């Protein structure tokens, strides 16, 4: 190890690492540390949720009860399936099967897009009445236009349901944003896999994008019951 004075970058090995093992270790650890950061990033929202869910139990149950749990359930299955395809993609990479990596990654992207498409319609349903398109009451976007009449709650609980919907949009919005960031990265890596850049010895990019995607899945695993199921009983 001590002999090399800045070896020219060759293949995937960057100049400042001694060997691929070190580079891989650094990259994977880096992604885990990033995920720890993400836990606290979403953590701020989950803490906010915890405080208000305790304070405004009734409003949260009413707000949650109005969300369509079947949509949430469907999306949960879609996202879990996309985690499976992602795991299979990483698996194929470890075995050095480039074509299969591409297939699994594209399947992941497809499922991710389905999730976002469903989300689009779910959001639309709540946003449309605010702009007169869906006509009539039921605008659930927090702010001046918020209208809780569809929730059938007492007048004084209505403002508190607004907090629920603020959290609903902030949490699912941030989650969706993470997916929107993830999809192009997966496509980029699928492209690199198609070009045959990865081997059983070096497929760390596939591995770390996998970690990211699984983390996004975990966030949803918590969002689903907290947002969709609290008002069902």
């Amino acid at each position, binding site marked *: 190890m001590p002999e090399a004075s800045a070896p020219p970058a060759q293949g995937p090995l960057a100049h400042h690492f001694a060997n691929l093992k070190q580079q891989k270790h650094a990259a994977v650890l880096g992604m885990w540390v990033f995920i720890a950061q993400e836990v606290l990033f979403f953590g701020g929202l989950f803490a906010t949720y915890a405080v208000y869910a305790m304070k*405004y139990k*009734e409003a949260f149950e009413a707000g949650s009860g109005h969300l369509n749990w079947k949509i949430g359930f469907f999306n949960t299955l879609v996202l879990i399936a996309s985690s499976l395809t992602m795991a299979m993609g990483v698996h194929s990479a470890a075995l050095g099967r480039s074509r299969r990596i591409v297939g699994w990654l594209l399947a992941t992207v497809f499922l991710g897009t389905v999730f976002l498409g469903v989300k689009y319609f779910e959001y639309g349903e709540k946003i449309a009445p605010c702009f007169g398109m869906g006509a009539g009451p039921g605008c659930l976007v927090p702010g001046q236009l918020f209208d809780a009449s569809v929730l059938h*709650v*007492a*007048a*004084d*609980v209505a*403002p*508190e349901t607004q907090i629920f919907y603020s959290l609903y949009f902030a949490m699912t919005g941030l989650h969706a944003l993470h997916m929107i960031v993830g999809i192009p990265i997966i496509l980029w890596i699928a492209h690199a896999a198609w070009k045959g850049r990865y081997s059983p010895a070096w497929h760390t990019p596939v591995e770390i994008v996998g970690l990211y995607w699984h983390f996004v899945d975990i966030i949803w695993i918590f969002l689903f019951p907290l947002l969709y199921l609290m008002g069902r009983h």
Partner: protein
Amino acid sequence: MNQAFPLLPEQASAQAGEVDALFFFIVAVTIFFTIGISLVILFFAVKYRRRSDEDRPKEIHGSLLLEMVWTIIPLGIVILMFAWGSKIYFQMNRPPDDAMNVSVVGKRWMWKLQHPTGQREINELHVPVGRAVKLTITSEDVIHSFFVPAFRLKKDAVPGRYNVGWFRATKVGSYHLFCAEYCGTEHSKMIGKIVVMEPEDYQTWLAGGPPPESPVVQGEQLFTELNCITCHRPDSAGRGPVLNGIFGRGIRLASGDTVVADEAYVRESILNPATKVVAGYQPVMPTYQGLVSEEQLIALIAYIKSLQIPSGETVPVPEEAE
């Protein structure tokens, strides 16, 4: 207080002396360690200064004993400070039962105060010396902080909730009242004074000016004007719970929980009636959010507080839980 260059703030409340005693204890600790360690460092720096470039001091790696000593001694000192401070803090948050109740509403950029007898003041509060004064503090807009340095008293005025502070003035005089939480443009103008008077002077002061309506009377008027009276009747025939004698007692709620009917609960029940409905009643009361001001709320609470159970009668108070 109008000294040109004061070095110590005035002590004008029962609390001030206690806070200062602790303050000067910590000052002593601070000075001892600051001067002590600085002197040791200067001494070392001179005594062991480098005399030649060939100096090679002997190595000393550390000492577990010393580490223990300078961990445990500071720990002991800070535990003492913590306990002492907590004791004072508890006193500060526990107003005596006989305190006279003054309500404080912060508003950009003034303090609105009201005496138990109904007199209103802005940016000025007259109080008798020696009498405990309980402050119920809230705000109409942003967070303010009610700060009287001479009393060592500070409490934030937070919109949407009541904070409680109290003092017992010990010295006649006039003292600064500051807003200590930044609240916008005229933050530094949101100042006033607390005038501490002899009890007889205070009575004279109360007697001066137009005869005020006490908050209880104002609350009673509001109670009628807002039609509260139609549901909350003194007999159990109304659609809402009977309010006589309710204040300060434990109430069982429809959810099965129990709450104490204090200021915060009454306030919440006026603004968000459906949140904590009394067991056995329907959530039919409309919200009064936006219909009553902070000061009107305080009057309503004062009125409800004053409602006693008529003697000789047993009013079916909503299931009592204590």
